């Protein structure tokens, strides 16, 4: 097999043994290209790759794929996200071919929040396949050059660096490393975790992951998200599925004034980020600045992760 330089900078950074960084961008609720590009301009250069979410929280947004095309034109390397909630295998494959045609190098496969959690609770959750099988399908398109029906993809096959997600905090906890193993077996080359506020639990998870040797089979990017207030932290705990916010953390914020809370949010993200960097098996961070990308450059600089390696 001839070695070829991956198109994906994220993949190259990881291959070079560097600590990788991904940043998440929320697309606009509307065809608001200028707003998207403003966000992109704010964070450009502050990560190796930029995820654009796909109807996150089951709320309608400008779709991930077109948003990725736009930010790619603006000089950012995208990670296109696809949920199993919104499309069947035909739709997913068509969009994957589209992503490949535009040279989008990274793809993230996930189940997606159920519609009842979002602003269209009356729509059907497609669920034609699950995220493990979506990873498998993308890998087979790339490596075996076949469509999901087994038929060959004529001429050009898509090339992707394939990612999946992990939530170490949702029960059943002892199964989470095994679910990770399933996604790796299906072909997941990188993993982006849910937001981490409970370091102890995450540490336990990583111990199990390292024991199973899974950290060598995939690159785990740990999720970090600066909040702006106590209310923000409470929102995470109550309204976003699968996030674990320990009481002591909330107490810390309760003692502060509104103005101090914003600074505390950023400080907390730095603390968590630093701890994660030291953890065995963590190969990078995935920063999700819920609601606002303005704090990202400062966070990345404080973590000592700017400028990004040039690979």
């Amino acid at each position, binding site marked *: 097999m001839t070695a070829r330089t991956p198109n994906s900078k994220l993949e190259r950074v990881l291959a070079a043994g560097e600590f990788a960084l991904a940043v998440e961008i929320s697309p606009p609720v509307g065809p608001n290209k200028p707003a998207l590009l403003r966000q992109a301009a704010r964070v450009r250069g502050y990560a190796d790759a930029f995820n654009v979410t796909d109807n996150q929280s089951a709320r309608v947004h400008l779709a991930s794929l077109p948003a990725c095309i736009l930010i790619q034109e603006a000089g950012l390397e995208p990670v296109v996200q696809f949920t199993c909630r919104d499309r069947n295998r035909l739709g997913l494959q068509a969009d994957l071919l589209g992503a490949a045609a535009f040279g989008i190098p990274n793809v993230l496969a996930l189940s997606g929040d159920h519609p009842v959690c979002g602003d269209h609770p009356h729509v059907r959750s497609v669920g034609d396949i699950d995220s493990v099988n979506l990873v498998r399908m993308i890998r087979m398109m790339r490596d075996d050059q076949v469509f*999901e029906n087994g038929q060959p993809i004529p001429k050009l096959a898509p090339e992707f660096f394939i990612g999946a997600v992990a939530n170490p905090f949702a029960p059943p906890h002892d199964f989470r490393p095994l679910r990770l193993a399933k996604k790796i077996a299906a072909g997941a080359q990188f993993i982006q975790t849910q937001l981490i506020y409970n370091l102890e639990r995450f540490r336990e998870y990583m111990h199990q992951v390292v024991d199973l040797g899974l950290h060598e089979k995939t690159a785990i990017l740990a999720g970090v998200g600066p909040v702006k207030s106590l209310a923000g932290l409470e929102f995470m705990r109550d309204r976003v599925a699968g996030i674990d916010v320990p009481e002591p953390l909330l107490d810390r914020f309760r003692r502060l004034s509104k103005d101090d809370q914003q600074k505390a949010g950023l400080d907390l993200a730095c603390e968590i980020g630093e701890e994660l960097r030291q953890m065995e098996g963590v190969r990078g961070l995935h920063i999700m600045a819920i609601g606002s990308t303005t704090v990202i450059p400062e966070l990345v600089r404080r973590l000592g992760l700017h400028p990004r390696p040039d690979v």
Partner: protein
Amino acid sequence: MSLRTTLQDHPGFLVVSWRVTEGLLRLLHRPLAALGLERSSRWVKPVEKPLKRLLFDCRMCGQCILHYTGMTCPMTCPKQLRNGPCGGVQMDGRCETDPEMNCIWLEALERLAKTPYDAEKLRLNPPVDWQLEEMASWATLALGRDRVTTGSDAETRYASEVME
């Protein structure tokens, strides 16, 4: 607590029932093959459907993997996941779509651990063939139709293959 959940939480009886059913279906392979999938399904369904509905809240996907999921039907999951729980399970074990409902997969994995098939939690269950919806899975099982997948032979089938 219903009859169903009682039986599922102590899956011994259901596991034995499944083994007996599977054994019977293997014995019946020849006659069922002679009938063909469509007719076998039509004959078997009037028995299978109400029984499995009662015991498992079966959704008639036509490609049953109950013995891999602790006799808990994965199609009762609102996202119809075939490979384990999503990341949206609430901290108290409830489904993200309904605070009154336990995560199906959480229950499935607990029950699976009580059966001899615990290793099957690592199985990469292939995607659903929706053409089999409403067909009798006893027929699809007997005729091997539930095992038809598109994929190369070298493909990993169990997550244990990537674990140390």
